[in-house]
């Protein structure tokens, strides 16, 4: 593995102990949590090689049983309602290359497109493949591909944006959400002029005939002179993207947004500047991700609440269970993150995953995950000892240690339940549920 890391030598890299705990955090931040034993194995590589093994996987295998519905019938991602979500969730659960998959999730949030507007599972999955394929490559290329992607054209009216009737929908979000940030370096006139530059794409989706006619038609393009960010020219859609990327405020937006998916505290000024330097003019995603994943802040800083879908996939990975139920569609929605259905084009609010509604959604997720392995309440052969039952529940989730506060509450629960003649099987079922809903497993 060749390491092109010398271009960011001035960025700090984590030098502290890198054991199973640190490797596990890395696997949650850059993927969907460890499979049993994976954190220990990754820790042996040391931080740098651990990161590179994730960002530059040799290949990809899907490990485990293929996805089915509740009747063990294979899923139909293009037709059956909700199965597009199951298809992706299954990849998160089974992939041997979690970081490219996690990047796909990041881009789905960044270029948040909703099936509500697109109305086609096929187009949503086409976009999903596009995001996966370009996820660690060039952001410039990704931006061009997203701009002309049929799902995006439908979602933000790019297909309705023509010379005679410009539509500002995509132009505005291109700057506000995708490249520059709200109120950063553009005004209403830039929105209008960028909309003109972006004219020329067409296409539509009809329930009966499907996606048709997505193409660039020069006749629909406005060939007049536009003024964007103070520059004049006969700009077209590619120029519109390029002008955003070349805008002096783009690198700072890019770095801050990308960093925020991995680390919950702000980068220091120097780190921010170095990351911008690493990115500016090259637009390569992978080196920036690799620098962030090796940064001391990731290992030394506070825990992050796992996004609901990451939490779900992680539960299934830990259990060695595949996707075998359509219930996940509804459950991930109530937990606050139904794939392909972001709340709006700005994506999910990653600082606000938990409230009383989504917490209850997570509870139901856990209950459903545990349903098929729930012990009969009268099951025998279990110890009548709270310590031993807690140890069993921890090894079920492969959690060697718990926060002291969590441990005390769970032991207390076990002891009091057993004292009141509850069956050990019932107590063990409850302990599995409680460990999964504890802050220990909801954060990493």
């Amino acid at each position, binding site marked *: 593995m060749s390491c092109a890391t010398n271009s960011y030598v001035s960025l700090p890299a984590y030098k502290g102990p890198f054991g199973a705990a640190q490797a596990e955090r890395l696997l949650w931040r850059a993927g969907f949590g460890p499979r049993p034993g994976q954190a220990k194995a990754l820790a042996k590589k040391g931080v740098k090689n651990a990161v590179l093994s994730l960002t530059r996987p040799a290949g990809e295998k899907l490990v485990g049983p293929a996805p089915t519905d509740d009747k063990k019938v294979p899923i139909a991602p293009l037709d059956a309602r909700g199965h597009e979500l199951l298809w992706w969730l299954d990849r998160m659960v089974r992939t041997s290359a979690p970081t490219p998959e996690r990047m796909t999730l990041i881009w789905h949030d960044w270029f948040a497109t909703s099936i509500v507007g697109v109305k086609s599972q096929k187009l949503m999955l086409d976009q999903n493949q596009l995001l996966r394929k370009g996820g660690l490559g060039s952001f410039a290329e990704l931006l061009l591909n997203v701009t002309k992607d049929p799902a995006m054209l439908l979602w933000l009216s790019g297909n*309705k944006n023509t010379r005679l009737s410009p539509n500002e929908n995509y132009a505005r979000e291109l700057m506000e959400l995708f490249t520059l940030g709200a109120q950063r370096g553009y005004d*209403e006139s830039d929105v209008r002029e960028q909309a003109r530059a972006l004219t020329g794409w067409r296409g539509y989706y009809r329930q009966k005939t499907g996606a048709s006619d997505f193409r660039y038609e020069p006749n629909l393009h406005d060939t007049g002179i536009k003024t964007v960010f103070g520059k004049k020219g006969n700009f077209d859609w590619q120029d519109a993207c390029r002008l955003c990327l070349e805008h002096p405020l783009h690198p700072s937006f890019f770095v801050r947004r990308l960093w925020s998916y991995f680390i919950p505290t702000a980068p220091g000024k120097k780190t921010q500047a170095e990351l911008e330097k690493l990115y500016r003019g090259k637009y390569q995603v992978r080196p920036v991700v690799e620098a962030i994943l090796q940064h001391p802040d990731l290992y030394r800083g506070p825990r992050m609440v796992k996004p609901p879908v990451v939490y779900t996939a992680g539960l299934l990975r830990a259990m060695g269970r595949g996707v075998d139920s359509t219930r996940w569609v509804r459950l991930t929605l109530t937990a606050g993150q139904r794939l392909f259905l972001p709340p709006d084009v700005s994506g999910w609010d990653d600082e606000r995953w938990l409230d009383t509604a989504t917490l209850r959604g997570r509870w139901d997720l856990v*209950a459903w995950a545990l349903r098929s392995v729930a012990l009969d309440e009268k099951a025998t052969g279990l110890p009548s000892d709270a310590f031993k039952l807690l140890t069993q529940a921890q090894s079920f989730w492969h959690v060697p240690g718990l926060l002291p506060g969590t441990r005390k509450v769970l032991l207390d629960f076990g002891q009091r339940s057993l004292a009141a003649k509850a069956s050990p099987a019932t107590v063990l079922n409850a302990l599995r549920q409680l460990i999964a809903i504890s802050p220990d497993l909801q954060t990493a």
Partner: protein
Amino acid sequence: MTDRIRPCGCADFSRTELFRRAAASAGEGLPPIESGMPLPAGTGLSRRSFIARTAGLALSVYGASNLRLPLLDEGIAHAATQANESRVLVSVFLDGGADVLNLLFPAGDSRYYELRPKLALSPDIGVPFDEDSRLRWHPSAQAFATLHGEGKATVFPSIGYTSPDKSHFTSRHYWEVGATDATARTGWLGRFLDQAGRADNPLQGLALDNRLQPALATAKVPVASMDGPDRYSFKAFGVSGQTEARMLEALGQLGLAHERASDKGVRQAGDALAQSYRLRGQVSPFGTGTITSPVKYPGDQDDDFPRRLASLAAMLAAGLPLRCVALSAPGRYDTHADQADELSDGIKLTADSLLAFQRDLEARGLADRVLVHVWSEFGRRARENGSLGTDHGAAGFGLLLGTRAGGKMVGEYPGLTSGLDSEGNLKATSDFRGVYSGILEQWFETDAGAIIPNAGSFARPKLVR
């Protein structure tokens, strides 16, 4: 580049800030609760209704464990003295920028037909708006016309603010925080609750939704979100009876153990657990499927909006201590294309549901306690865009509904000639911050100046009778 443009080098980093959005947090900074101390429950049911209901599901959860009843009693005693005095504000959001030139369309303005050759509604449909003969109600908004005819609707035909922002997220954020301030972190209703609310009552600010609504974001007191009181239970397979009740206790104890943790991630999770436990205690007397309404609501079981309104009326009837409630209306209002199809169904279900809610409150004798505020982040461009849709505009549509609503239009319809700004958008004839101030003063009888920045600079319409 102008000097207004600057890179964000702010010390306090957040994606939320990057997108100008308020982060609703459920009660950061609650007063400390000693470990081992029983959890506050604070159900607002009157003793009688509680006893009547405990015969059902609640008893099996709380009665069996024999742990919680004294606490519930305390909560009841407190809430019973308060709840019936409380006025309730219900905030209904039309997401995406609702087109006022469609909802209340200016059939009597000839410019309308020039600007909207394809989208303009015909002057012979819908019913006339009797406070301005130029305007007519969208046919799907008949229920609003009905309420208006009964004097139970105050209409804002062109509400907004100066220097309007055309971004959904920025403009919505302004409305949510009650100020044109991109960095504000608490909602306008959240700040009211921080002053008037309690440390142990998450229901005081309730989002009837799958997530919290930013207008309710508080700095001090807890707020809550849930899909419905009949859907807020915590079950696990292979766990029942007393162990189930103890498991729920343990969930609350996990919250208490971590809600003041030094690690922010752990604290967020602990806080959510503690608040969920408290909320569960408050709504536990509602078993599953126990909500009945004296009136028929439109739509079917899949329609969240009417179902949530029906459950809201039932919660109020049960005496739960609600103060501010926020929910989103059905429909997609960001009608860049194919507006006629996109708009009608959503408006109809919204208006019909709100009329049913009003009738429900009237039947239960609660109508004088509830005011409903309907809003959207902006209106649409006056000129249609050629995709059979409209782009983002400026001033838009608003309503206050209820028997106590003033019933008189606030601000006039400005017309499409001199009433448009340089970008072809409707000029605002009323300011949302003045409306908020009026609601705070006239409905909640509190000092708006402490909640809305520069409250004194906005005109106060008469909103409450």
